Protein backbone atom coordinates (compact mmCIF):
# COMPACT_ATOMS: atom_id res chain seq x y z
CA UNK A 1 0.00 0.00 0.00
CA UNK A 2 2.77 2.44 0.99
CA UNK A 3 4.61 1.53 -2.21
CA UNK A 4 1.54 2.30 -4.35
CA UNK A 5 1.11 5.73 -2.72
CA UNK A 6 4.83 6.47 -3.19
CA UNK A 7 4.60 5.45 -6.84
CA UNK A 8 1.57 7.70 -7.37
CA UNK A 9 3.37 10.67 -5.77
CA UNK A 10 6.41 10.20 -8.04
CA UNK A 11 4.20 9.95 -11.13
CA UNK A 12 2.30 13.11 -10.15
CA UNK A 13 5.58 15.01 -9.74
CA UNK A 14 6.47 14.26 -13.34
CA UNK A 15 3.76 16.71 -14.42
CA UNK A 16 6.16 19.51 -13.52
CA UNK A 17 8.26 18.63 -16.58
CA UNK A 18 5.44 19.54 -18.96
CA UNK A 19 6.04 23.26 -18.43
CA UNK A 20 8.55 23.53 -21.36
CA UNK A 21 7.33 25.00 -24.64
CA UNK A 22 8.59 23.40 -27.83
CA UNK A 23 9.45 26.70 -29.56
CA UNK A 24 11.48 28.37 -26.83
CA UNK A 25 14.89 27.36 -28.27
CA UNK A 26 16.45 30.34 -30.03
CA UNK A 27 17.95 29.72 -33.45
CA UNK A 28 19.74 32.05 -35.85
CA UNK A 29 16.60 33.00 -37.77
CA UNK A 30 17.84 36.61 -37.92
CA UNK A 31 20.90 35.60 -39.93
CA UNK A 32 18.68 33.73 -42.31
CA UNK A 33 15.93 36.33 -42.78
CA UNK A 34 18.43 39.16 -43.34
CA UNK A 35 20.14 37.14 -46.09
CA UNK A 36 23.52 37.23 -44.31
CA UNK A 37 23.60 33.45 -44.31
CA UNK A 38 24.30 33.55 -48.04
CA UNK A 39 27.51 35.45 -47.41
CA UNK A 40 28.62 32.76 -44.96
CA UNK A 41 27.84 30.07 -47.52
CA UNK A 42 29.67 31.98 -50.25
CA UNK A 43 32.79 32.40 -48.09
CA UNK A 44 32.98 28.75 -47.06
CA UNK A 45 32.21 27.56 -50.60
CA UNK A 46 34.93 29.75 -52.10
CA UNK A 47 37.50 28.43 -49.63
CA UNK A 48 36.49 24.84 -50.30
CA UNK A 49 36.36 25.20 -54.08
CA UNK A 50 39.83 26.76 -53.95
CA UNK A 51 41.20 23.79 -52.03
CA UNK A 52 39.45 21.33 -54.36
CA UNK A 53 40.82 23.12 -57.43
CA UNK A 54 44.32 22.86 -55.93
CA UNK A 55 43.81 19.12 -55.45
CA UNK A 56 42.74 18.78 -59.09
CA UNK A 57 45.85 20.60 -60.31
CA UNK A 58 48.14 18.43 -58.19
CA UNK A 59 46.37 15.36 -59.57
CA UNK A 60 46.89 16.56 -63.14
CA UNK A 61 50.62 17.18 -62.54
CA UNK A 62 50.93 13.70 -61.10
CA UNK A 63 49.22 12.18 -64.14
CA UNK A 64 51.72 13.94 -66.37
CA UNK A 65 54.70 12.63 -64.40
CA UNK A 66 53.25 9.11 -64.34
CA UNK A 67 52.85 9.17 -68.11
CA UNK A 68 56.51 10.16 -68.59
CA UNK A 69 57.76 7.19 -66.60
Amino acid at each position, binding site marked *: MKRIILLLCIILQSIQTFSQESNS*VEMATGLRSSGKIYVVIAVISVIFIGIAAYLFTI*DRRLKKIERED
Partner: protein
Amino acid sequence: MTKSWWKILATVLILYSIIGGLLINVPALPILHETIRNLYFHVPMWFAMLALYLISVIYSIKYLSSGKTSHDLIAVESVNVGVIFCFLGLASGMLWANITWGEPWPNDPKLNSSAISTLMYLAYLVLRNSIEEEQKRGKISAIYNIFAFPVMIVLLFILPRLTDSLHPGNGGNPGFGGYDLDDTMKLVLYPTFIGWILMAVWIMTIRYRIRLIENKRYLRSS
Protein backbone atom coordinates in the same frame (compact mmCIF):
# COMPACT_ATOMS: atom_id res chain seq x y z
CA MET B 1 42.95 5.65 -59.41
CA THR B 2 43.43 8.16 -62.20
CA LYS B 3 39.71 8.38 -63.00
CA SER B 4 38.07 11.73 -62.28
CA TRP B 5 34.39 10.99 -61.81
CA TRP B 6 34.54 10.01 -58.15
CA LYS B 7 36.75 13.02 -57.37
CA ILE B 8 34.22 15.37 -58.94
CA LEU B 9 31.47 13.53 -57.04
CA ALA B 10 33.37 14.07 -53.78
CA THR B 11 33.68 17.80 -54.48
CA VAL B 12 30.01 18.13 -55.39
CA LEU B 13 28.83 16.21 -52.33
CA ILE B 14 30.94 18.26 -49.93
CA LEU B 15 29.76 21.48 -51.60
CA TYR B 16 26.20 20.22 -51.10
CA SER B 17 26.94 19.71 -47.41
CA ILE B 18 28.21 23.27 -47.08
CA ILE B 19 25.21 24.85 -48.82
CA GLY B 20 22.51 22.46 -47.56
CA GLY B 21 24.11 22.19 -44.15
CA LEU B 22 23.74 25.92 -43.56
CA LEU B 23 20.42 26.50 -45.30
CA ILE B 24 18.24 23.46 -44.58
CA ASN B 25 16.21 23.51 -41.36
CA VAL B 26 17.50 21.63 -38.35
CA PRO B 27 15.72 20.58 -35.16
CA ALA B 28 15.76 23.32 -32.52
CA LEU B 29 17.31 21.64 -29.48
CA PRO B 30 18.31 23.31 -26.21
CA ILE B 31 22.05 23.77 -25.47
CA LEU B 32 22.96 22.95 -29.09
CA HIS B 33 20.93 25.65 -30.94
CA GLU B 34 22.49 26.14 -34.38
CA THR B 35 25.72 24.30 -33.48
CA ILE B 36 23.94 21.07 -34.32
CA ARG B 37 25.04 21.87 -37.87
CA ASN B 38 28.56 20.96 -36.79
CA LEU B 39 27.35 17.39 -37.11
CA TYR B 40 27.70 17.71 -40.89
CA PHE B 41 31.41 18.45 -40.57
CA HIS B 42 32.68 16.90 -37.34
CA VAL B 43 31.27 13.38 -37.83
CA PRO B 44 32.32 12.90 -41.48
CA MET B 45 35.92 13.56 -40.40
CA TRP B 46 35.75 10.48 -38.19
CA PHE B 47 34.05 8.37 -40.84
CA ALA B 48 36.76 9.36 -43.33
CA MET B 49 39.39 8.32 -40.78
CA LEU B 50 37.62 4.99 -40.21
CA ALA B 51 37.41 4.29 -43.94
CA LEU B 52 41.12 5.02 -44.35
CA TYR B 53 42.15 2.89 -41.36
CA LEU B 54 40.04 0.06 -42.76
CA ILE B 55 41.77 0.37 -46.14
CA SER B 56 45.10 0.44 -44.31
CA VAL B 57 44.49 -2.77 -42.38
CA ILE B 58 43.18 -4.54 -45.48
CA TYR B 59 46.33 -3.64 -47.41
CA SER B 60 48.49 -4.57 -44.41
CA ILE B 61 46.97 -8.04 -44.50
CA LYS B 62 47.45 -8.16 -48.28
CA TYR B 63 51.08 -7.15 -47.86
CA LEU B 64 51.75 -10.01 -45.44
CA SER B 65 50.68 -12.54 -48.06
CA SER B 66 51.97 -10.82 -51.21
CA GLY B 67 55.13 -8.98 -50.11
CA LYS B 68 54.46 -6.31 -52.78
CA THR B 69 55.80 -2.86 -51.88
CA SER B 70 52.74 -1.18 -53.42
CA HIS B 71 50.50 -2.78 -50.81
CA ASP B 72 52.72 -1.57 -48.02
CA LEU B 73 52.71 1.94 -49.49
CA ILE B 74 48.91 2.05 -49.55
CA ALA B 75 48.86 0.87 -45.93
CA VAL B 76 51.18 3.61 -44.72
CA GLU B 77 49.72 6.43 -46.78
CA SER B 78 46.22 5.49 -45.60
CA VAL B 79 47.37 5.85 -42.01
CA ASN B 80 49.13 9.13 -42.84
CA VAL B 81 45.98 10.71 -44.24
CA GLY B 82 43.79 8.98 -41.64
CA VAL B 83 45.74 10.59 -38.84
CA ILE B 84 45.21 14.01 -40.45
CA PHE B 85 41.44 13.46 -40.50
CA CYS B 86 41.65 12.19 -36.93
CA PHE B 87 43.24 15.47 -35.84
CA LEU B 88 40.61 17.42 -37.75
CA GLY B 89 37.91 15.45 -35.95
CA LEU B 90 39.54 16.09 -32.58
CA ALA B 91 39.96 19.82 -33.28
CA SER B 92 36.40 20.29 -34.54
CA GLY B 93 35.08 18.25 -31.62
CA MET B 94 37.01 20.30 -29.05
CA LEU B 95 35.73 23.55 -30.53
CA TRP B 96 32.20 22.22 -30.37
CA ALA B 97 32.62 20.81 -26.85
CA ASN B 98 33.93 24.13 -25.59
CA ILE B 99 30.63 25.81 -26.46
CA THR B 100 28.21 23.04 -25.54
CA TRP B 101 29.88 21.13 -22.69
CA GLY B 102 31.71 24.09 -21.19
CA GLU B 103 35.25 22.78 -21.72
CA PRO B 104 37.16 21.43 -24.73
CA TRP B 105 38.14 18.16 -23.01
CA PRO B 106 35.82 17.08 -20.20
CA ASN B 107 37.67 13.76 -19.60
CA ASP B 108 34.89 11.85 -21.19
CA PRO B 109 35.33 8.10 -22.01
CA LYS B 110 34.71 8.61 -25.71
CA LEU B 111 37.20 11.47 -25.97
CA ASN B 112 39.85 9.66 -23.96
CA SER B 113 39.34 6.58 -26.15
CA SER B 114 39.81 8.65 -29.28
CA ALA B 115 43.00 10.12 -27.82
CA ILE B 116 44.35 6.64 -27.11
CA SER B 117 43.55 5.41 -30.63
CA THR B 118 45.26 8.50 -32.07
CA LEU B 119 48.37 7.65 -30.07
CA MET B 120 48.21 4.04 -31.28
CA TYR B 121 48.28 5.07 -34.91
CA LEU B 122 50.98 7.68 -34.33
CA ALA B 123 52.97 4.84 -32.76
CA TYR B 124 52.49 2.89 -36.01
CA LEU B 125 54.20 5.72 -37.88
CA VAL B 126 57.00 5.92 -35.32
CA LEU B 127 57.46 2.14 -35.52
CA ARG B 128 57.89 2.33 -39.28
CA ASN B 129 60.52 5.01 -38.93
CA SER B 130 62.54 2.87 -36.56
CA ILE B 131 63.10 -0.01 -38.98
CA GLU B 132 65.55 0.46 -41.84
CA GLU B 133 65.04 -2.63 -43.97
CA GLU B 134 62.02 -2.37 -46.27
CA GLN B 135 60.55 -5.88 -46.05
CA LYS B 136 61.00 -6.12 -42.28
CA ARG B 137 59.49 -2.67 -41.83
CA GLY B 138 56.49 -3.60 -43.91
CA LYS B 139 55.90 -6.91 -42.13
CA ILE B 140 56.29 -5.67 -38.56
CA SER B 141 54.16 -2.58 -39.11
CA ALA B 142 51.53 -4.70 -40.88
CA ILE B 143 51.26 -6.94 -37.83
CA TYR B 144 51.02 -3.90 -35.57
CA ASN B 145 48.29 -2.48 -37.80
CA ILE B 146 46.30 -5.72 -37.57
CA PHE B 147 46.35 -5.40 -33.78
CA ALA B 148 45.74 -1.66 -33.71
CA PHE B 149 42.61 -1.69 -35.86
CA PRO B 150 40.31 -3.89 -33.68
CA VAL B 151 41.60 -2.18 -30.53
CA MET B 152 40.62 1.16 -32.08
CA ILE B 153 37.15 -0.18 -32.91
CA VAL B 154 36.64 -1.40 -29.36
CA LEU B 155 37.92 1.84 -27.85
CA LEU B 156 35.78 4.10 -30.01
CA PHE B 157 32.54 2.16 -30.35
CA ILE B 158 32.23 -0.39 -27.59
CA LEU B 159 33.84 0.91 -24.41
CA PRO B 160 32.16 4.34 -24.35
CA ARG B 161 28.73 2.74 -24.70
CA LEU B 162 29.28 0.66 -21.56
CA THR B 163 29.68 3.62 -19.23
CA ASP B 164 28.46 7.17 -18.64
CA SER B 165 29.37 9.62 -21.38
CA LEU B 166 28.54 13.14 -22.52
CA HIS B 167 29.05 12.22 -26.13
CA PRO B 168 25.89 11.49 -28.20
CA GLY B 169 25.47 7.81 -28.94
CA ASN B 170 27.30 6.62 -25.83
CA GLY B 171 26.68 6.01 -22.18
CA GLY B 172 22.93 6.08 -22.29
CA ASN B 173 22.64 9.11 -24.58
CA PRO B 174 20.58 8.71 -27.73
CA GLY B 175 22.78 9.00 -30.80
CA PHE B 176 21.89 8.89 -34.44
CA GLY B 177 18.23 8.25 -34.10
CA GLY B 178 14.88 9.96 -33.94
CA TYR B 179 16.02 12.12 -31.03
CA ASP B 180 18.97 14.22 -32.22
CA LEU B 181 19.06 13.36 -35.88
CA ASP B 182 15.75 13.70 -37.68
CA ASP B 183 15.14 12.88 -41.33
CA THR B 184 16.02 16.32 -42.67
CA MET B 185 19.47 16.05 -41.14
CA LYS B 186 20.01 12.59 -42.60
CA LEU B 187 19.32 14.16 -46.02
CA VAL B 188 22.53 16.17 -45.71
CA LEU B 189 24.55 13.90 -43.47
CA TYR B 190 24.57 10.65 -45.44
CA PRO B 191 25.77 12.15 -48.75
CA THR B 192 28.39 14.10 -46.79
CA PHE B 193 29.82 10.86 -45.39
CA ILE B 194 30.31 9.60 -48.93
CA GLY B 195 31.75 12.95 -50.02
CA TRP B 196 34.39 13.16 -47.30
CA ILE B 197 35.31 9.46 -47.50
CA LEU B 198 35.90 9.87 -51.25
CA MET B 199 37.89 13.06 -50.65
CA ALA B 200 40.06 11.34 -48.02
CA VAL B 201 40.69 8.38 -50.31
CA TRP B 202 41.58 10.81 -53.11
CA ILE B 203 44.20 12.53 -50.98
CA MET B 204 45.56 9.12 -50.03
CA THR B 205 45.82 8.03 -53.67
CA ILE B 206 47.73 11.20 -54.54
CA ARG B 207 50.26 10.52 -51.78
CA TYR B 208 50.47 6.86 -52.81
CA ARG B 209 51.10 7.67 -56.47
CA ILE B 210 53.87 10.10 -55.49
CA ARG B 211 55.45 7.37 -53.34
CA LEU B 212 55.25 4.87 -56.22
CA ILE B 213 57.13 7.23 -58.52
CA GLU B 214 59.74 7.98 -55.83
CA ASN B 215 60.14 4.27 -55.24
CA LYS B 216 60.54 3.52 -58.96
CA ARG B 217 63.14 6.26 -59.42
CA TYR B 218 65.06 5.11 -56.33
CA LEU B 219 65.14 1.55 -57.63
CA ARG B 220 66.24 2.74 -61.08
CA SER B 221 69.07 4.89 -59.73
CA SER B 222 70.48 2.32 -57.26
